[in-house]
């Protein structure tokens, strides 16, 4: 996988949250998209802009670009640095101040607040993805589409497909401009609005390499709604939307500041409840850590899914050289097939040919093993008693 060093251009960012950090999803290279003829309509949330080319002017002025580099990790996720502190708007400060009165500073940090977002850690995941994807599944479905999904309060995942035919068409229409155009994801913050393509609160662009098919986007924006276009950014500043995603909303990463009128909750009471829920309160079993800390625990300790596959964690022993030696004793013999044989007083079954074989775990010490055979008519009897002593030094 190529090392991803991406540029982020903040296009428009009034009251913008922290710097978006990019997260490349590995692309399968050499994808071939078939040239399509017919366009099927998707669910109404997955809107597409197909035949017509839409020109969007970036809103506001472009701010300085900002680089972030990431460690690529084969096919998996890349680790990333933590989001930065960000300025907060006046309005929010005021609202939050109301929420926070009467609770201690320590408790306050568990409330959602742009100023003190709980630090997140991103797990580096071992890549398992192989060539499997390429060989066994269709390369594409002959569509221009982009789908957006929520991974967690901060991160989105998007995948898309653009038909060869669409590229061809764009190439024809744009002529020279196509050569210098950049393939871009434009991420819109569309919280609480009816998004029409030009009324987003803000947006930012993510440039990607030609073969990318999916991407992880760090929005640094819990509790916001998002939409993404896949498109081309031309050298003259215009943006051409090829497909527009569904709209998703990231969950809050802390308690809501909204308390409805009918159920006005005293902050102090709620904070006691909340801290009790996460183990900070006066409850006898002290969890000591807030909820999000608990979530960072390794799988198997936090009540995770699919119980059959997530064991109570296997203890990892320190690697050390080892040796195990056990002994077993085999007692075997034969008699008349219809005879009755007992070993240490217990009857055993004979094979059809009158042979028998017994296998014992042999601990240290002396074992006396009387083997007795009695003929079918009970007239004859033989007893043989092996005595075995084992000693481990």
């Amino acid at each position, binding site marked *: 996988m190529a090392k991803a060093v991406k540029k982020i251009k903040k296009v428009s960012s009034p009251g913008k949250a922290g710097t978006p950090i990019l997260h490349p999803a590995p692309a399968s290279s050499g994808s071939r998209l078939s040239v399509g003829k017919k366009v099927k309509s998707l669910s109404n949330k997955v809107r597409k802009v197909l035949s017509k080319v839409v020109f969007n002017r970036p809103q506001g002025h472009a701010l300085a670009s900002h680089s972030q580099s990431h460690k690529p*990790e084969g096919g998996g996720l890349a680790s990333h640095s933590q989001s930065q502190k960000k300025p907060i708007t006046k309005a929010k400060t005021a609202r939050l101040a109301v929420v926070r009165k009467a609770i201690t500073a320590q408790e306050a940090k568990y409330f959602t607040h742009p100023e003190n977002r709980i630090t997140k850690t991103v797990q580096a995941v071992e890549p398992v993805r192989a060539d499997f994807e390429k060989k066994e599944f269709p390369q594409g479905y002959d569509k221009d589409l982009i789908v957006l999904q929520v991974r967690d309060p901060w991160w989105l995942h998007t995948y898309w497909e653009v038909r060869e035919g669409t590229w061809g068409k764009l190439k024809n229409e744009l002529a020279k401009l196509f050569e210098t155009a950049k393939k871009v994801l434009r991420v819109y913050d569309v919280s609480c609005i009816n998004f029409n393509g030009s009324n987003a609160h803000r947006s930012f662009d993510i440039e990607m390499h030609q073969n990318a098919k999916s991407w992880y986007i760090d929005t640094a924006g819990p509790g916001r709604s998002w939409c993404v276009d896949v498109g081309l950014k031309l050298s003259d500043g215009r943006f051409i939307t090829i497909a527009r995603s569904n709209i998703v909303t990231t969950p809050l990463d802390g308690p809501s500041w909204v308390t409805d009128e009918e159920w006005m909750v005293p902050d102090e009471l709620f904070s006691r409840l909340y801290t009790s829920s996460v183990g900070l309160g006066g409850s006898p079993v002290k969890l000591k850590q807030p909820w999000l800390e608990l979530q960072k625990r390794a799988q198997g300790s936090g009540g995770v899914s699919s119980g059959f*596959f997530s064991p109570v964690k296997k203890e990892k022993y320190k690697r050390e050289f080892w040796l195990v030696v056990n002994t077993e004793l085999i007692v075997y013999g034969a008699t008349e097939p219809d005879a009755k044989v007992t070993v240490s007083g217990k009857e055993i079954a004979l094979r059809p040919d009158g042979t028998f074989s017994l296998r014992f775990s042999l601990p240290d010490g002396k074992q006396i093993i009387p083997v007795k055979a009695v003929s079918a008519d009970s007239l004859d009897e033989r007893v043989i008693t092996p005595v075995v002593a084992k000693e481990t030094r």
Partner: protein
Amino acid sequence: MVLHTHLPYVRHPEFNDFLEEDWLYEAITETYIPLIEVFEGLVKDGVDFRVTMSLTPTLISMLSDSLLQERYLRHIGKLIELSEHEIERTRFEPEFNALSRMYFKRFKSCRDIFNQYHRNLVSAFKRFQDLGKLEIITCGATHGYFPLMDVAKSSIRAQLRAAVSQYEKVFGRPPRGIWLPECGYNPGDDQFLKEAGLKYFFTDAHGLLHGSPRPKYGVFAPVYCRSSQVACFGRDLESSKQVWSSIEGYPGDYHYREFYRDIGFDLDYEYIKPYISSDGTRINTGIKYYRITGTTGQKQPYMPELARQKAAEHAGNFLFNRQRQAEYLYEILEKKPIIVSPYDTELYGHWWFEGPMWLDFLIRKIYFDQNIIQMTNAVEYLEENPRNQVITPSMSSWGYKGYSEVWLQGTNDWAYRHLHEASWRMDELVKKFPEASGLIRRALNQALRELFLAQSSDWAFIMATGTHVSYALKRTQEHIQRFNKLYEEIKANSVEEPWLKDIEYKDNIFADIDYRIHQ
């Protein structure tokens, strides 16, 4: 007390024996039957109790499947045989000999109970539901993870409809509640629950705590979802952690049985060979002779009586903590709190050998020894406390980190473009064939089965955790391929009947499915 009971649909009639089918057999022997024994004992002794238990539609299908029932009997028969050999082999080692006798007795009793319920354990659980002790709830048809089906909502509906319809058939009444697959909730999904006639569901703690408006009583009272009025109960982390945590939780106690020392790995290869995987790979047999002992690899023999005492002690500790928790909460809430403690059922017995015994002690202690807390279920609680706050819970799951990352990461994210496309194709087929019959109808029904099976969250989960990965890949691939072939053939009106028949036989879940539920 909520027990989520799920296994993915694993059934391979095309092979004589199949490693992953053992998940079911192990769960029957180690978890389901021990729990049934606990419930039977409680009923026999007149102990009133309330436990909520999900039985996922895939699990119900497997437990009711005659081929798998037959194979379970074969499986338990071999275990009985192995434990007989073990009684013989350990003759000079009294501690191990006693343990091998314990296993022999347990395995025999498993076979007896299995036969007593006419090989179908679902009827055992139904019995306790009919007695009012157990509240059985449903789940997504094949445990599809709803938050990642946001662009394929008709699949969410279909998952729910298939589940409800199976439940009604099996239990003779509609389900009242649901355990969302992976506890995965996305705001708005409650609307689909309402459509399916479901009255309540559960979220993880932050699903409620981070909901909007803020829930007045935290997770200690249910809420109603804003638009649907479906009730939502939040998970209590404190009680979860006491049982779950591998560090501080009960199951890690040194007196309890060590899961990772199994004779399938410990004994001489030639001796154990007939009882491990048919390809010769060593696997767990279920016979384990050691206790956890400590943090080193040196293990002492398991002492059932010591473990039993510990289980009783831990049950007492759990009860004590719930009492203090309830008193504390009552003080600050000024109303009776509800404490929701959900667990994966397989924790009890499979991972934590003494778990069923602990549950038995706990229920008896709650019933006989105190009157501070009381076992309840969602329905009874809501009857007593119908007035609850109205909020929109937050998107959440009970997976690692609390959201969708387990099922959406580098190892498995590539699958969603195929899964979503299949959902949209299914929509297209349903629209195109509103009243299909004959071969086309069979093909459409099978297409929905294949889609369902591909959607199991288990495959993404397995890919993320890294064990059995090739199996999960194979299953995803197979079902998507079969679906796409059906899609093409249905559209071209050229369904290949012998092939259809073959996959109907292999992927036989939900025999009387109706493809039109997918819309």
